[in-house]
């Protein structure tokens, strides 16, 4: 069965829909956690520490975090691989462009591929910046995420990369959530409006929620 799913264009879309929804669910939690920065360094750092102790004593220290990381990496890899293979198929299926071209699909629909590449690159930078600290400006302090976040958003490029990626994220979710519903067969005429509304609300809330952090650092609300 796994073979039939992966070998079919419809099956690969299903893999993309499921992995996309997993990442989307994670992003909602991630965004809500980020907002703790508005309650000060003690609460934000405390929350970050709690994430490491989650599930104890049943789970060992940091195991819950590692389980989430493994699931997310699997989701990203599955999503990107399926997207790459499907895109190759799509481009092969339409090798000749029309002389008289017309653009009608929405901006969000047309930017799914490049938006996805931007998000992929952003995730790599984001992990190297705030998880491993490899490319972090101004000395990365493990266990002090509040200070690390402020350091990142005190650089112009940190803000630019983040804001661009979050706009790409909003567009990606706007078309992606609704598309996932269609791919999984959950769409219908009566539900179409509701699904589009949920997609737009998710896109807007996640973008605004994530963007509020660098904006707060830039304007000095969080320092």
């Amino acid at each position, binding site marked *: 069965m796994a073979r039939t799913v992966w070998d079919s264009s*419809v*099956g690969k879309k299903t893999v993309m829909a499921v992995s996309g929804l997993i990442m989307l669910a994670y992003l909602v939690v991630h965004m809500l956690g980020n907002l703790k920065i508005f309650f000060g360094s003690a609460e934000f750092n405390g929350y970050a520490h709690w994430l490491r102790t989650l599930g104890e004593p049943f789970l060992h220290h940091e195991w819950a975090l590692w389980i989430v990381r493994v699931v997310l990496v699997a989701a990203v890899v599955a999503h990107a691989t399926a997207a790459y293979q499907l895109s190759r198929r799509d481009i092969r299926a339409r090798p000749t*462009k029309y*002389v*008289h071209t017309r653009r009608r*699909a929405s901006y969000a*629909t047309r930017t799914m591929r490049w938006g996805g590449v931007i998000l992929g690159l952003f995730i790599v930078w984001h992990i190297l910046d705030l998880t491993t600290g490899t490319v972090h400006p101004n000395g990365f302090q493990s266990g002090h995420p509040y200070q690390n976040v402020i350091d990142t958003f005190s650089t112009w490029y940190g803000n630019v990369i983040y804001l661009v990626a979050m706009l790409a994220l909003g567009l990606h979710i706007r078309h992606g959530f609704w598309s996932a519903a*269609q*791919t999984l067969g959950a769409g*219908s005429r009566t539900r179409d409006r509701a699904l589009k509304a949920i997609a737009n609300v998710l896109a807007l809330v996640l973008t605004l929620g994530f963007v509020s952090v660098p904006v707060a650092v830039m304007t000095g609300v969080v320092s």
Partner: protein
Amino acid sequence: MKLTLRVWRQRAADTEGAMSTYEVDDISPDMSFLEMLDTLNEDLILRGEDPVAFDHDCREGICGACSLVINGDAHGPERTTTCQLHMRSFADGDTIDVEPWRASAFPVIKDLVVDRSAFDRIIQAGGYITAPTGSAPEAHATAVPKPDADFAFEHAECIGCGACVAACPNGAAMLFTSAKVNHLNVLPQGAPERETRVLDMVARMDEEGFGGCTLAGECATACPKGIPLVSITNMNKEWLRATRKAGKR
């Protein structure tokens, strides 16, 4: 009306093609688009040139033979087939671009004619029901609920013209395949092959080299028969159901 036409000319499948410019005069706004092309061809024949090859048959909008991408739109600016598109949809002095369906699964044979036999092979993979032939069965023998009959009929309207593939940025045949799958899968007559139909037709569609669906919605906008985009959603649902059932066997 006086018009400038820019038409895709290609001598054969394996030769290079290009857009050629022609002037046509004395076009009546009541002519269909195909009659306008007939006028151009008569003129070309009189001048000893090769007439423009294009597909057409019933000229009543029900056979699915005519094609043409007109000014970037499959079947032109109106939501109908090219044969039912009239010149009153254009203005005197317009320049009109006429191109063939573009998809690697629909190779150009000559000028504006493409080979759409890939659609026939998708139908052969499952677009039928297994029923004893002979005299027509008693009409009340198999009851079909009205909503199901309406749903089936809405999808049975697909004439297989290929406008969905031509309009799709990925050259996908999802709308065509979904129309055929939904038409038969909802009816009791189609029930015995409900799972194999959708699995085999989607597999064939992939084999033919059509692209995948990115839900751009261009197909449903171009479809002269108004097959809705939600048909694709419904086929995805049928495909997932069939895959689950096949996995259990």
